[in-house]
């Protein structure tokens, strides 16, 4: 009863139910209008009259495009879709780590994790209603402003619309149950965690269904390329870019949830003088940032996979992305990602100041900083530079004869790997900052040995799998001649070397030289993955270009095995190590909290920018190669125009989420405090 009363009091969640109901009502309308599958010929005919129909605008059935209150339809859809995506990313990302935190709380018995998971879920319930409202608004504006396009999309996907709505209900109800049963089920944590897992399953289903619509627009399949008629709904759903987009968004959602939660904690930290609250929000900011960085580390690889698959589907879109009209947006992207990584490292280094014993590792910071800056210099250097005519004359062309090499993909991949490993190193220093005398690994018993050996076997298996793949790879499968086989050997051999490094690392750890094992493993990964394969990439670019993606995967395998194995050693190495002193939570610098906010703002800008790039790559196509955009807004926006809209979206989102959090927690907490007093 108490639970029910609380449910009735929570206006945000009631609103979410209302929106969900409205959403379910909209979808059949879309689907109904989509029942008649428009043929390509029909569409072309409509395209021909698009301009005139838009001007006359008397017959709603013949309108392809509409405007609302004189606003640019594309900008309206652009803003609403991005806002919906950002709120969606938050409400899909946060449940994932809320449940993980709850599991950690149960496993460790540390109730702080449980409290934190509950606090994250509080933010979630407040943001859920807005996400739903924006979803409804997006459906409305799409139906209203782009009726022909929605008719076509509905014709292809209307079955999945219903499933989507049902999943939405599922997630909403699972969320209510999860949130409101927190107290009631505190003695049945297993069941409560199961509820959380169910909530996440619904959330992921929602994401993958919506992803299929977005990816279909870029890489349509299951439809006749000439007429646009649907041949297979399944094939349309499982289109080529669907899975790469799923992986990328899944990781990005976790990062996004983490940075928004960390920024929330930072604002709370800055706004309170209470030492206990300061300590709590300092810790919350740390956890949010940790979660964000843990998933951010893998995002460049997921992005690379998505990019390669875009190129594979259409070299026009691929060229457009990295070398064409969108290439300069990637320089902006590099700046924003640079801010994320530098910000994350800065946060860790600042955090070390409140850890007794950290002064032993301060000396490393300048070297890590130097490596990070060097890598970002490489990452920022474009292949094709903006040059003055005088500079062109001195250099004898459009390219700087030396610096041009830094603009190629091989250099970028090497730089990203080095950045990730440097950030990981910062994290290791943070972790061991207050640790004194270690508990020898040889004395930790058989369980530790077995677990570490199992981790090593997983890493070895991963490396062996890919090395074996490269050793047996047929050049013909890549349309390469037999003579190109020789180029596959070098990365394969480096993978075998990496396997040897893991074995040596395991042996050294068993002999109580775990730290040395970590340094060897990380050093060799830098040597092989960054330097050797970074340089070798240039050879591959000219001799067997199609193999370049395998070089990137080899680098990823080396890095991943290093991260997993070194982390595992670290856990055992510093488990039960004597502490020099406890972390002084709450004594974090003010600058570090502003950095958390900056990281959040950068991520919001980054998501808005990447959303623009992904969608903009289609240029003047609603559905690439199938349904052309004949509206007046079909042009590719300039950098300045894009910057204005992306900036506006970021401002609106940050304003909205701040308001929603204030409603959900700030206002609520004041009410509660008032009631208590």
């Amino acid at each position, binding site marked *: 009863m108490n639970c029910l009363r609380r449910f009735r009091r929570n206006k945000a969640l009631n609103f979410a139910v209302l929106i969900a109901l409205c959403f379910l009502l909209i979808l059949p309308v879309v689907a109904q209008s989509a029942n008649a599958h428009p043929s390509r010929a029909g569409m072309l005919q409509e395209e021909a009259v698009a301009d005139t129909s838009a001007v006359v605008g008397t017959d709603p059935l013949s309108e392809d495009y509409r405007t609302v209150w004189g606003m640019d339809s594309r900008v309206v859809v652009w803003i609403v879709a991005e806002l919906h995506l950002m709120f969606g990313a938050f409400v899909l990302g946060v449940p994932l780590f809320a449940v993980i935190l709850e599991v950690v709380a149960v496993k460790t018995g540390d109730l702080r994790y449980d409290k934190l998971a509950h606090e994250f879920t509080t933010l979630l319930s407040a943001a859920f209603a807005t996400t739903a409202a924006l979803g409804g608004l997006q459906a409305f504006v799409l139906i209203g402003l782009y009726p022909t396009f929605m008719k076509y999309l509905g014709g292809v996907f209307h079955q999945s619309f219903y499933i989507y709505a049902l999943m939405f209900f599922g997630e909403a109800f699972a969320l209510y149950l999860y949130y409101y049963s927190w107290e009631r089920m505190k003695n049945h944590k297993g069941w409560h965690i199961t509820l959380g897992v169910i909530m996440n399953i619904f959330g992921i289903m929602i994401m993958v269904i919506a992803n299929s619509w977005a990816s279909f627009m870029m890489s349509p399949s299951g439809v006749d390329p000439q007429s646009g008629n649907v041949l297979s709904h399944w094939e349309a759903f499982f289109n080529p870019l669907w899975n790469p987009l799923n992986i990328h968004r899944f990781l990005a959602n976790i990062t996004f949830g983490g940075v928004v939660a960390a920024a929330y904690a930072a604002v709370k930290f800055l706004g309170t003088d209470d030492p206990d609250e300061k300590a709590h929000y300092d810790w919350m900011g740390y956890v949010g940032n940790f979660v964000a960085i843990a998933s951010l580390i893998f995002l460049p690889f997921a992005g690379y996979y998505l990019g390669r698959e875009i190129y594979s589907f259409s070299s*026009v879109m691929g060229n457009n992305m990295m070398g*064409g*009209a969108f*290439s300069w947006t990637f320089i902006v992207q590099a700046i924003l990602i640079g801010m994320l990584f530098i910000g994350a490292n800065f946060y860790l280094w600042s955090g070390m100041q409140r850890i007794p014993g950290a002064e032993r590792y301060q000396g490393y910071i300048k070297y890590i*900083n130097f490596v990070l800056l060097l890598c970002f210099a490489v990452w920022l250097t474009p292949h094709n530079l903006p040059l003055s005519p005088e500079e062109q004359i001195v250099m004898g062309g459009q390219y700087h004869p030396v610096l041009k090499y830094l*603009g190629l993909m091989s250099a970028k991949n090497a730089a990203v790997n080095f950045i990730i490993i440097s950030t990981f190193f910062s994290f290791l220093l943070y972790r061991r900052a207050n640790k004194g005398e270690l508990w020898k690994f040889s004395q930790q018993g058989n369980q530790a040995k077995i677990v570490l050996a199992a981790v090593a076997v997983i890493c070895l298996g991963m490396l062996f799998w890919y090395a074996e793949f490269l050793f047996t790879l047929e050049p013909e499968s890549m349309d390469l001649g037999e003579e190109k086989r020789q180029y596959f050997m070098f990365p394969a051999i480096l993978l075998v070397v990496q396997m040897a490094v893991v074995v040596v690392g395991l042996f050294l750890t068993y002999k109580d030289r775990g730290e040395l094992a970590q340094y060897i493993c990380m050093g060799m990964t830098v040597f092989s993955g960054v330097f050797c394969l970074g340089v070798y990439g240039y050879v591959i670019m000219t001799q067997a270009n199609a193999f370049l993606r395998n070089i990137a995967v080899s680098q990823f395998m080396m890095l991943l095995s290093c991260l997993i194995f070194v982390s595992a050693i670290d856990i055992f190495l510093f488990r039960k190590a004597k502490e020099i002193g406890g972390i002084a939570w709450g004594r974090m610098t003010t*600058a570090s909290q502003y950095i958390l906010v900056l990281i959040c703002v950068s991520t919001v800008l980054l998501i808005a920018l990447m959303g623009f790039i992904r969608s903009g790559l289609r240029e003047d196509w609603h559905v690439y190669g199938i349904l052309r955009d004949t509206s007046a807004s079909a042009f590719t926006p300039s950098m300045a125009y894009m910057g204005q809209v992306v900036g506006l979206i970021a401002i609106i989102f940050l304003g909205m989420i701040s308001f929603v959090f204030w409603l959900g927690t700030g206002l609520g907490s004041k009410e509660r405090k008032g009631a208590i007093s």
Partner: protein
Amino acid sequence: MQKQKKPGMNIFYKSLITIIGIALFLELFFPYLSQWIAGSENPLPVPGTLMFMYLVLAGIGTLVYVASDETKFQEFKEPLVEMLRGREQKEGPDDKTHNHVRMAILVAFPLLVGWYVFNQSSPSLSAPTSLRIQHPTIPQTYEKLKNPFREASVEELEQATLEGRVLYQKNCRPCHGTKAAGDGPMARAFRLKPANFTDPGTIATVVESYAFWRIKTGAPGLPREASPWDSAMPVWGDDLTDEEIWKIILAEYQTAGVDPRKPEKLE
């Protein structure tokens, strides 16, 4: 007896020296290093845009390093605060000199900034720095084209490449050079030099149909954002048949010693 540790230089000055050192390295040393690496006839300076980016990055890096440690940051701020507010204890013998230097800097700094702004914004006779798109979008009509000779027998492919080499030397060599290094006898006449095909960032990064489009439609076929007015590439479609262009493509990749990018397969 314990040795007294000498107070070191303030971190602000260390940071300043680091940034000036980086600027001097990029300005004075790097051009000669590049000349040596590239085997160029003249030093190769770092372009202005890159110099700006690198120095901003160096500034950010220094600030990040200093600000990550509260003690260092306080030390870093000292000279700045002193510069703006003046010394708090005005008893030292060199106080007068210090004050003169301070005033000189406070006057000179805004003047320097003003001079820079004036210099940047005043009209000049030189053409503006252009932002060029490297690989403009290939029209979809060209995207799916394939070199017909790649499907032919080995003998036919060799014959076509041989003919392509003759066609290349006859039509392309004057600008792109005998060895496709962008250094033909006419290359020096152009402001934007002809592409160097041996560079891994040029034809090796594009599929053959892209090269076909560029040869067939030349500079006038480039979209507006790729600044077609910068390129002197003729419209070879007016003088050569499609078959001849495909043969030239075979030859130019072979001459440059690079492979065309293969259309990739979805995984």
